[in-house]
Each structure stands twice: as structure tokens, then as C-alpha cells.
């Protein structure tokens, strides 16, 4: 067969596939935007779930996600620093690095079940703390991985130059190497945040849901994602409209965080 014809066929096929993919994506986004925006009212933001709004859900979701971030960022960054700067080529380093990579793709429902067994069952109630911990566990491997990889991109000469000026290793790592990798590490943190802010499975068995506004994390805790999951199954029109509105807002938030992440990297490289 003629090579040119084969070339054309493959080009046509791949173009078609690209359009199918993009087509579905636009379909989803368009439906979401249309249904979402038409369901949003001012009261959507000012009311809690009991009154047909998502105020408590937004607050709850962000509280759990921010708490998870506060825990996961220092732990993850320090673990990444350990792996790259102190772990060397020891077998233990390799094991931790690989385990962390595997954790990145662990099904989130499994993490939810794990936290359920440790932080829900023993206390006899779903609670916000457990939800936060589940989210933090999801963030950790992403942050460890990016920190590790971004530090690896810093040339070893930079470390040596710092040492040659009379620096101690930990000062050079914290003041120079980490600084040189700052943009990449920050992006990793943002992306891990974008990842968990839209997660349902880790919260389903941990924080469960709450119709009311609450700041008490020791009880059932409200979140957008779990509520969307619940609302979508309710028979009444109002619930489903609220689910659309919540989905749209959630998508917008995730998109926004991703864009910020990209913007930060683009500006610096």
C-alpha cells in the first residue's frame, strides 16, 4: 500500500479521535454550564443545604481541604526533601519512593475505607477530622512526588557552590535548593489541592454529610462533593437543580486552581 495513503488514513483517524474526545468534553462543560448557571440564584450561596443552598457545603469542603493541606504540605515537602537530599541510594529510599508513587494511584475509595476503619468506627460517628485525614493522605504522595522530582532538577553544582561558600547541608537545602525548586513545588501543592477539592470517595465514609452549617469537625461534616452525590439521586427537581449548580461551582473552582497552577509555572520557566 502506498505510504502516503496510509499517512492520510492515520491522520484522519487521529483527527477524528481528537474531535470525539474534545466533543465529549465540550458537551459535558456546556451542559454543566447551562444547567448549572440556570440553577444558580443568590440564595444558592447564602442558604445552607436544609434551605436549598450550598453555603455550609462550600465552607465544609474548604475547611476539610485546607486542614488537609496544612497537614500534608509540610509533611510532604519534608518527605520529598528527605528522599532527594538525604536518602541517597539506600534501599529504604527506593522503597519509600516507590510506595509513594503507588499511593498516588491508589483508588480514593480505598483510602476512604481505611480512614473509616481507623477514625470513624472506633469513635462511632462520621466526622470532619476523618474526612480531612483522608484528603491529606491523598495529597501526600502527590506532594512528595513533585517535591522529589523538582529537587532532582536542581543542578548538583548549586548545592556544591553553597557548600563551597561554607554552608551547612541543611541550610543549603532549605535556603538555596528548595528556593530554586520553589515554583515546581508550589505547582505540585496547587495541583494536589485541585485534586482533593473535587473528591467524593474519601469523604463518603468519613465525614459523610450534614445539612446544617457547622464548624464542629468531630461530627458529621458537610461537603459539596458528597452532597452532589446525594442530591443527584433525589427524585425532586429542586434537589437535582441544586446538584447541577453545585457541580458547576465545583468544576469552576477546580478549573481555576488548575489555571493558577499553570500560570505560576508558565511565568517562571
Amino acid at each position: 500500500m502506498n505510504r502516503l495513503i496510509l499517512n492520510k488514513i492515520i491522520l484522519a483517524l487521529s483527527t477524528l479521535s481528537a474531535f470525539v474526545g474534545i466533543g465529549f468534553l465540550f458537551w459535558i462543560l456546556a451542559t454543566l454550564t447551562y444547567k448549572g448557571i440556570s440553577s444558580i440564584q443568590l440564595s444558592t450561596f447564602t442558604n445552607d443545604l436544609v434551605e436549598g443552598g450550598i453555603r455550609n457545603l462550600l465552607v465544609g469542603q474548604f475547611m476539610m481541604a485546607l486542614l488537609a493541606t496544612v497537614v500534608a504540605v509540610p509533611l510532604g515537602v519534608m518527605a520529598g526533601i528527605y528522599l532527594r537530599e538525604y536518602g541517597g541510594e539506600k534501599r529504604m529510599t527506593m522503597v519509600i519512593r516507590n510506595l509513594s508513587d503507588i499511593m498516588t494511584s491508589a483508588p480514593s475509595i480505598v483510602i476512604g475505607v481505611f480512614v473509616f476503619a481507623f477514625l470513624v468506627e472506633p469513635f462511632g460517628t462520621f466526622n470532619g477530622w476523618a474526612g480531612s485525614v483522608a484528603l491529606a493522605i491523598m495529597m501526600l504522595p502527590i506532594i512528595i512526588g513533585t517535591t522529589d522530582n523538582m529537587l532532582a532538577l536542581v543542578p548538583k553544582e548549586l548545592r556544591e557552590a553553597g557548600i563551597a561558600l561554607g554552608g551547612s547541608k541543611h541550610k543549603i537545602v532549605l535556603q538555596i535548593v528548595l528556593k530554586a525548586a520553589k515554583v515546581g513545588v508550589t505547582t505540585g501543592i496547587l495541583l494536589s489541592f485541585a485534586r482533593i477539592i473535587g473528591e467524593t470517595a474519601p469523604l463518603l465514609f468519613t465525614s459523610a454529610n450534614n445539612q446544617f452549617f457547622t464548624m464542629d469537625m468531630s461530627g458529621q461534616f458537610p461537603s459539596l462533593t458528597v452532597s452532589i452525590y446525594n442530591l443527584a439521586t433525589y427524585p425532586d427537581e429542586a434537589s437535582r437543580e441544586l446538584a447541577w449548580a453545585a457541580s458547576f461551582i465545583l468544576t469552576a473552582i477546580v478549573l481555576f486552581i488548575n489555571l493558577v497552577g499553570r500560570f505560576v509555572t508558565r511565568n517562571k520557566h
Partner: protein
Amino acid sequence: MTKETANPIMEVKDLFFTYPNAPEPTLKGNNLTIYENKITAMIGPSGCGKSTLLRAMNRIHDLYAGCKYEGEINLRNLENNKMENTLNLKKENQLIGLRQKVGMIFQKPTPFPMSIYDNVAYGLRLKGIKSKSELDGRVEKALKEAAIWKEAKERLGHSAMGLSGGQQQRLCIARSVALKPEVLLFDEPTSALDPISTGAIEELISELKKDVTVVIVTHNMQQASRLSDYTTFMYLGDIIEFGNTEKIFLSPEQKLTEDYITGRFG
């Protein structure tokens, strides 16, 4: 060249050096004397151990665990004029002290991701200098000594990453000079630079020798002969010949040295 007054500042004695997990030593019993306020060039084919020897002289190898030294690398203590073996230093702050006395410039410029001012002030701050006026003074002096003050003075607060390669290299020299080291080790400092920047750095190095002792690794024979007072030729981990640069280049004693200098191999 005033050979009579040449005064040893460093002495490498029977030095064996082995990289982590390497089956045999890379440096095989090196002996070398470095004279104060002179420029010593190290030449030799790729892989002969020039960088390895240079990096032993401020123990930068120790950044990586598992390096083995045998022998002595003595540095003269300027307070009591006694030679002290730097291989006996064990603690991290002793090594820090050594590196403040024996600085190093690398092949690729290594500006830190911070402002020009902070780059130069960094080592000073590590040394514990906090006073703003003292820092200002020493940063300015170092930048002047490294011949980059003119280009840098208007943009001290700007990121050092915005400088050209040659300017970055001079900034790195300024950074080391600011610590008032006794010895400066240069590992092919111009091989990543264009001829004009190279000229500027060479001029700078010959100026520096008033205040510091210089050891420079280079692949450029002209650079070695233009710049240095002494030259040492290395081959396969051995020091084959050491002597006055003129002598090494005009009438070397070893056949190997002659072959290398005349470009017959390497």
C-alpha cells in the same frame, strides 16, 4: 616571577582518593605543593583526575558519603605558620571553616536564585555577619574586586539569574572573594564562556593573585601558559610533572608531558 620568595601554602602528600564504591583509587599517591600568591595550573587529558584532586583540596567530596582519602592535604595556618592536615577535620563546622578559607568556582556559573546583592552577602551571612553597613561595604568591595561592580551596581536588588553567563561567573567569583579566602580553586571556570568573557575572567584571576593563591584546572594550554606561575601535568591519576610554567611548556622533563603539551594526545 619571584621564585625565591615562593612560600608553600598547601601541600598534598601521598594522596590516594577513592570514590564511593569505586574498585580502585582515582588519585594514586599524588604529591604537590601550592605556593602562596601564585597561580598553579592543572592540566591533563580528560578523566585524569584534575577535578578529583581539586575537589579534595576543600573536601567538597565529603558532600557525598563514602569517599575515602589516604595521605595528607596540608594547609598552612596563617596564625602560627604551621601546616595542618585538612584530612583530619571531621566535624561539619571544621569543614565549613576549611571551605571559607579554600573557596571554589565551578565550570558552569552557579548563581543562587536570589538577588545579586544577596548572592554576595550569602556567604558573609553564613559567617555570621549581620550588620547592614558591614555587609554593604563588603559586597561592594567584592563586586569591585571581581570587576563586576560597574555592571551590577544599578541592579543589586535584581535577580542574579538575569546576568549573562560571563557576568554570572564573575558574580560567583565575587561571592567567593567576599569571604577573603586564602586559596581559590577554579575548575575550568571559562570553558562555558565566550572569548570576551573568558578574557575578562583571566584578567580578573591574574589580579586576584595579589590577595589569594589560585589553583586552576584548564583544558586550554594558552590559558595555562598565559596565566599561571606553576603548572602540574596529570595523567591517569598520577602527577607526572610539576614545575615552573615556563619550564613545563618549553622544556618538560617527561616525554608524556611534552606529548600532551604539543597536542600529540589528549
